[in-house]
């Protein structure tokens, strides 16, 4: 203690008044109190922080509406796409076979139930549009190859098989006993709407959708996805920069306030808590508003072009909750990352800055 003591007078061994033991240590106030202070800080500065806050809201709105929309698309757009596909399939079948009334049609499906919804709507459509049509099947493709009597007097085979037909008997054997030899083969595309692949008249294969077209559709879907992700990424970045800026402003604005807090006995950890909680309040409240507006925007968008009841009916509670939670977490994390730099500046301030009359 007296190493660098310039006075010649030795300092007596310290105890009592001269002892460092008389000094206690400061502890932070209870977390609830800090949260209350941070909340109050945000609320009082909300006027100036509103632009930043809107930035977060916007970012989360993008994210949320992208997620909700993809859910609605699955539930609303796919059935409508499927319906269109079914109609066009039916059109082809009519063109090949002629009137379908009183005709016998054999439907072959793969062993797995991979194309259920599409097949169901196709069969429903057939029944709706043709009188006294005889539909044989759906017959599983393994069984379809064993019993050639199935095809006697049939007008068409609708084969629901993903691969090129490589089984015995061949198309030729199967169509021998048919009244009219029309085979429609369907390849369900795992990445998109079902594509009516090709039709066989006799032995002739008539491709309906080229490989190139298929590839292009896939690429387009991929591009669309990238575009959405980019938009979400950019908007979150903007939100993060906005929060950083707002907190920085609030640090410089509160230069004196923060150093005064240090004069009153605030530990650096208190300042850190304060800054991070403030940021979290901004981030979370922005995310809350953002999820709400995101849901609203996507609903409005879909309802404007699809049936309202269908759109609303397509919303799945637990899934929506999951998406909300994701948005809240993202909002919170972005806000906390944004708080790092301003907090470092606040921590670096010395209490003496409270005395400065400028700024």
């Amino acid at each position, binding site marked *: *203690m007296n190493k*660098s*003591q*310039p*006075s*010649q*007078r*030795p*300092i*007596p061994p*310290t105890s*009592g*008044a*001269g*002892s*460092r033991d*008389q*000094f*206690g*240590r*400061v*502890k*932070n*106030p209870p977390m609830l*109190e800090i949260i209350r*202070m941070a909340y*109050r*800080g945000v609320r*009082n*500065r909300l006027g100036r922080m509103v632009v930043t806050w809107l930035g977060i809201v916007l970012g989360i709105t993008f994210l949320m509406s992208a997620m909700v929309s993809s859910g609605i698309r699955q539930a609303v757009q796919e059935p409508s796409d499927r319906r269109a596909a079914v109609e066009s399939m039916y059109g082809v079948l009519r063109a090949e076979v002629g009137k379908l009334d009183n005709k016998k049609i054999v439907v072959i499906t793969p062993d797995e139930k991979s194309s259920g919804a599409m097949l169901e709507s196709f069969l429903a459509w057939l029944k709706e549009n043709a009188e006294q049509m005889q539909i044989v099947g759906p017959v599983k493709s393994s069984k379809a190859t064993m019993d050639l009597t199935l095809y006697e007097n049939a007008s068409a085979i609708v084969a629901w098989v993903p691969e090129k037909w490589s089984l015995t008997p061949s198309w030729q054997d199967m169509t021998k006993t048919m009244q009219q030899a029309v085979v429609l083969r369907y390849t369900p595309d795992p990445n998109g709407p079902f594509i009516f692949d090709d039709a066989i008249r006799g032995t002739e294969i008539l491709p309906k959708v080229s490989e190139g077209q298929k590839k292009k559709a896939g690429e387009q879907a991929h591009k669309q996805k990238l575009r959405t992700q980019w938009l979400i990424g950019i908007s979150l970045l903007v939100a993060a920069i906005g929060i950083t800026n707002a907190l920085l402003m609030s640090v410089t604005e509160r230069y*004196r*306030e923060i150093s*005064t*807090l*240090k*004069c*009153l*006995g*605030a*530990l*650096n950890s*208190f300042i850190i808590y304060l800054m991070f909680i403030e940021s979290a309040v901004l981030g979370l409240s922005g995310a809350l508003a953002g999820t709400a507006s995101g849901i609203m925007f996507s609903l409005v968008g879909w309802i404007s072009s699809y049936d309202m009841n269908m759109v609303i009916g397509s919303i799945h509670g637990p899934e929506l909750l999951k998406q909300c939670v994701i948005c809240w977490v993202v909002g919170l994390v972005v806000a906390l990352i944004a708080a790092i730099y301003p907090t470092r500046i606040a921590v670096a301030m*010395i*209490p*003496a800055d*409270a*005395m400065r*009359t400028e700024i």
Partner: protein
Amino acid sequence: MNSSEQNTKDTADNGERLKAFIDEVSSFEGSGLAVRVDDVQKVYRMGKIEVRALDGVNLKINRGEYISIMGPSGSGKSTLFNMMGGLDKPTSGKVYVDDVDIAELDPSELAWLRCRKIGYIFQTFNLIGTMTALENVMLPMAFAGKSNDEALDAGVDILTRVGLGERCKHKPTELSGGQQQRVAIARAFANDPAIILADEPTGNLDLKTGQAIITLLKDMNQERQTTVISATHDHKMLDVSDRIVWVADGRVDRVEKRKDVEIEVGKLVE
């Protein structure tokens, strides 16, 4: 060299030694010093420019004293303040508060010093704008670990003491300058500190309000035996001070007892 000269020098040396001895003995039971500043220098570097704000300051302040620090603008009063209050670190030299070298304290002990041992009053009041008067006063109590209920009662009491019992719920912007400084004083006294450091507490106030603030500080000093150290340009402060420390160019120019100053001021008045 004649022996009589030698003798006088010896006697003087003896006198010095005796004084040092008395200092030493008294420091066994605590020196009675609230603050001791030992050859403190403070140099601010801004790029290539060096500002020597304090240039070897020595100062001893007794417990319970009311000290005014006077000096021209830029003489280093505020800087001295920051050193005594543990708000900034000296470039060299030592500061002892209650005989403890504050350079040896760790951050949380230093925070304790700022929280419990010293109360600060600023020229610009420095109330937290988002908090009410009462919340401002309760803040240092929260850092000191007081429960909310305790702090609430104590806060109302002390605000009542400074004459603002009715203004607890008011925000700083809803209070006049003098009222804000009263809240700041209440906040500085919140944890019943041993020392109050005030940097030009009346600097932003008009004459009359300033006078009231000075009276309040003096009363609190008397009531609670709190050491008050106040930097000031305000000559009204001199009336209530036990001693006046004159600072010039980063050094202590002279230290005067009030009696001596009264004579001077008397002369000035005449």
